[in-house]
């Protein structure tokens, strides 16, 4: 998985699973859980990107564990599904502050009584949060979303070693921390909800000067801690050994943190009912779900395949075991605005109109696994605003494509010289396209090929392993005309985390996330050693995106992003968005409480409970 500003999904089929509205389950589960038991989770692979060190960890699976169980941040979420789950709440902070200086100065007061888990045991101070930021700014620790904090005053000076502290972060006392920014950043609270900003005790973390090391000895600030924490000796770095409860290749075992005080927390964020959590690697995916059905395991970190979901959904006594939640992710086809025939907006509109989105949804596992997407940013991230929920500029019957409407657009393009509604020129034949080689990705190919053939576009599709697919698509030099089965999910619930995909500043030679090259200028193209076809003018949304980013008033800001989303869909047309993905979970019958963590797009581990008497062993 390539990790960018958002999380670029390697083949939409890999991560996008599950659907919000479900006939057999739902986004959240109420229920009266009781304390006790162990919540048992299995995964084919943890997939941790930085050995579970919060500074560099950039996977939704790890974020779910951090937020619910181990790492508290100044600002958090309600830990539930839907729009409510994207609403910010104070966590370590006593209140959500009101920024001053045009959203450039943010001062927080910390709650009292929050302590680190053993063996540190002491109260968490503002200095521990400042230290977390210093780690993010330390290049050797490989923070993967440090760009969110680059406008903190003095950031670059600290990162380059020219300063001993970050000038823009001050801690006048143990309970106060102030951030001074160099530019207005109305979404700064969201950025403070990311787990890398959680407090880190220097007395332990200083022992790990390299990326990922601290993950083996993470000191919890949440309701649980890694097994073995109490036995850890931190008198010197020489005595610090990996905690017994964590081995990245086999297990992560959590027990209660005796220093956690529920009075410093809220039930809407964490109820912390199970006594323990076990996350165990089981490389056999089918076995995981068989074990869940048998009551031997309670949950999985990966989505069940459609074949298993279908068999469970067909069983009236088991269908309640399927739980779903919106992933705040969009699956899309990316069209390169510099490559024929997609350098013509009428062709791009025709592609949107001919696409069989229902077929693509079916290839993804059907409606349970995602709703049809009609624009860029998932509706949940617009708080289901009525001005966008019904918006579909390329509506077709049953979302299965409309040949007449597509042909009408194609007739207007330069690639249909005979104006017969199909592209007959060479530029439309054998168009180089890239996709993943997962089953879902491959199943999507014939749907796309079949649809495009109707307007005269044929594809030369390369099916690549996910990592190779991402490397190819994100290489500007490769200049892939059509990238199939792409996916993007949020880092936090602000549309800016999607819109950055279309800003010219996101275009880079490798690791490029602006795969449509929206906003590419002749000078930038020259730097990248690519060319813009003669007569083609590439639209830019830079100014509008920056204006939206700088807008603080929530309602106005949201309206600004919605207008930009519509502008992209109608006047730029870089994508064919087709599925707003959901996550599907299969839980055991021993699970009595289960909720969905909308912010992390996974199980809300802080809101689950099990009945041990129903757990098989």
């Amino acid at each position, binding site marked *: 998985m390539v990790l960018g500003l958002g999380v670029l999904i390697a083949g939409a089929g890999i991560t996008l699973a599950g659907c919000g509205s479900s006939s057999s389950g739902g986004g959240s589960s109420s229920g009266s859980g009781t304390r006790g038991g162990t919540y048992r989770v299995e995964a084919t692979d943890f997939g941790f990107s930085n050995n579970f060190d919060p500074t560099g960890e950039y996977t939704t699976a790890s974020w779910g564990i951090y937020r619910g169980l181990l790492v508290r941040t100044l600002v958090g979420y309600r830990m539930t599904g839907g729009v409510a789950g994207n609403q910010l709440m104070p966590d370590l902070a006593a209140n959500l502050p009101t920024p001053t200086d045009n959203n450039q100065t943010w001062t927080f007061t910390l709650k009292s009584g929050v302590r680190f888990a053993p063996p540190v045991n002491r109260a968490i101070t503002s200095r521990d949060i400042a230290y977390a930021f210093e780690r993010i700014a330390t290049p050797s620790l490989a923070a993967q979303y440090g760009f969110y904090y680059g406008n903190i005053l003095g950031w670059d000076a600290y990162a380059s070693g020219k300063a001993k502290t970050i000038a823009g972060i001050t801690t006048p006392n143990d309970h106060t921390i102030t951030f001074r920014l160099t530019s207005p950043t109305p979404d700064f609270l969201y950025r403070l909800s990311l787990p890398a900003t959680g407090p880190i005790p220097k007395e332990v973390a200083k022992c790990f000067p390299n990326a990922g090391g601290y993950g083996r000895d993470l000191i919890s600030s949440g309701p649980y801690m890694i097994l073995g924490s109490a036995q850890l000796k931190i008198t010197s770095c020489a005595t610090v050994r990996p905690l017994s409860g964590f081995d990245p290749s086999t297990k992560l075992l959590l027990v209660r943190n005796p220093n956690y005080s529920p009075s410093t927390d809220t039930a809407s964020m964490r109820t912390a009912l199970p006594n323990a959590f076990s996350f165990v690697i089981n490389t056999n995916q089918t076995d995981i779900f068989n074990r869940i059905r048998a009551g031997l395991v309670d949950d999985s970190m990966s989505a069940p395949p459609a074949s298993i979901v*279908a068999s469970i959904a067909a069983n009236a006594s088991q269908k309640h075991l399927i739980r779903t939640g919106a992933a705040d992710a969009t699956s899309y086809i990316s069209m390169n605005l510099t490559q024929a025939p997609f350098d013509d907006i009428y062709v791009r509109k025709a592609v949107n109109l001919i696409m069989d989105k229902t077929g693509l949804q079916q290839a993804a596992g059907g409606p349970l696994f995602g709703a049809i997407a009609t624009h860029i940013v998932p509706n949940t991230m617009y708080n289901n605003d009525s001005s966008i929920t019904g918006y579909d500029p390329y509506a077709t019957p049953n979302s299965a494509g409309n040949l007449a409407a597509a042909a009408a657009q194609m007739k207007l393009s330069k690639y249909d010289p005979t104006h017969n509604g199909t592209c007959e020129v060479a530029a439309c034949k054998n168009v180089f396209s890239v996709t993943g*080689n997962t*089953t879902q990705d491959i199943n999507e190919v014939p749907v796309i090929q079949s649809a495009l053939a109707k307007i005269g576009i044929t594809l030369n599709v390369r099916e690549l392993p996910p990592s190779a697919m991402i490397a190819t698509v994100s290489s500007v030099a490769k200049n892939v005309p059509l990238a199939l089965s792409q996916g993007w999910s949020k880092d936090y619930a602000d549309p800016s985390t999607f819109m950055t995909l279309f800003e010219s500043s996101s275009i880079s030679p490798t690791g490029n996330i602006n795969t449509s090259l929206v906003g590419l200028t002749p000078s930038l193209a020259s730097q990248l050693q690519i060319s813009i076809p003669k007569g083609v003018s590439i639209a830019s949304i830079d100014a509008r995106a920056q204006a939206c980013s700088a807008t603080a008033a929530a309602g106005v800001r949201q309206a600004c992003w919605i207008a930009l989303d519509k502008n992209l869909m109608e006047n730029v047309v870089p994508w064919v968005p087709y599925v707003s993905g959901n996550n599907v979970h299969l839980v055991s019958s021993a699970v009595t409480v289960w909720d969905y963590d909308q912010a992390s797009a996974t199980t809300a581990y802080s809101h689950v409970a099990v009945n041990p008497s129903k757990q098989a062993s």
Partner: protein
Amino acid sequence: MVALGFLLGLTVLAIGAPLVADLIGHGPNDLYRTTMLDQYGLPKGPSLSFLFGADGAGRDLFVRVIYGARVSLLVGVVATAIAVLIGVTLGLVAGLRGGILDTVLSRISDVVLAMPLLLFAIGISSACSTTPQGCVKGTLTPGLNLVIVVIAIFSWPAMFRIVRATTMSLRQSAFVEASRAIGMSERNIMFREILPNLLSPVVVYSALLIPQSILFEAYLTFLGLGIPDSTPSWGGMLDQASQLFTVAWWLMVFPGVFLLATVLAFNLVGDGLRDALDPRSAQ
């Protein structure tokens, strides 16, 4: 004879695949998702109009299986032909000339045999997949051609060794010595005296190499390194089946049975040829 009959029938079916598809009215890439996929996108099983059921994309599996025979036979025959051509030519030269040339060619074949086959295939496939041009200036692009080249590269050394060893034995024989004594050129000795005597082992080994090539293509495609999905191949079908066989047995059974029967038939034909051409077997 049964095996030969099966292969002949399969060849006819493969050649006539477009006619069969026309007759049924289902192309190999035609989608029937509304009728042959359920709400979860899972395929429906065999019926009168879809004899082998549908695959994961809602395509007619029967039509794709008979189209898949084309790929298997083509890969098997062409890759084997290339491997035989290389192996026989180099084996003849090495066996007849001996000396440094023999040593060099033998070591090259040893190197090829020592190469990690799958890693090499993955490397070539990856390197040639990320640009429209493929690699080697467009000579190698992912798909059928690349698979055939990879299989041929790894198949010729075995043929080379057989031919080289047989040639070395033959060049010491009385009839070759006699030819030399009467002044026959080395070239004529190679083509008129030795090559005809190599026919038996070459034919027999070729017949056994074909099923190996077919299986190798299936392996590569199963791993996502071979034929793209738009070209039906049994390996690709089995790859899809591995994800869905618990709910769609037909995805594994039909291509699997065809692959099994084809490989078995080629092996039986190879055994038969060996028995027929090897005088010791007759005794």
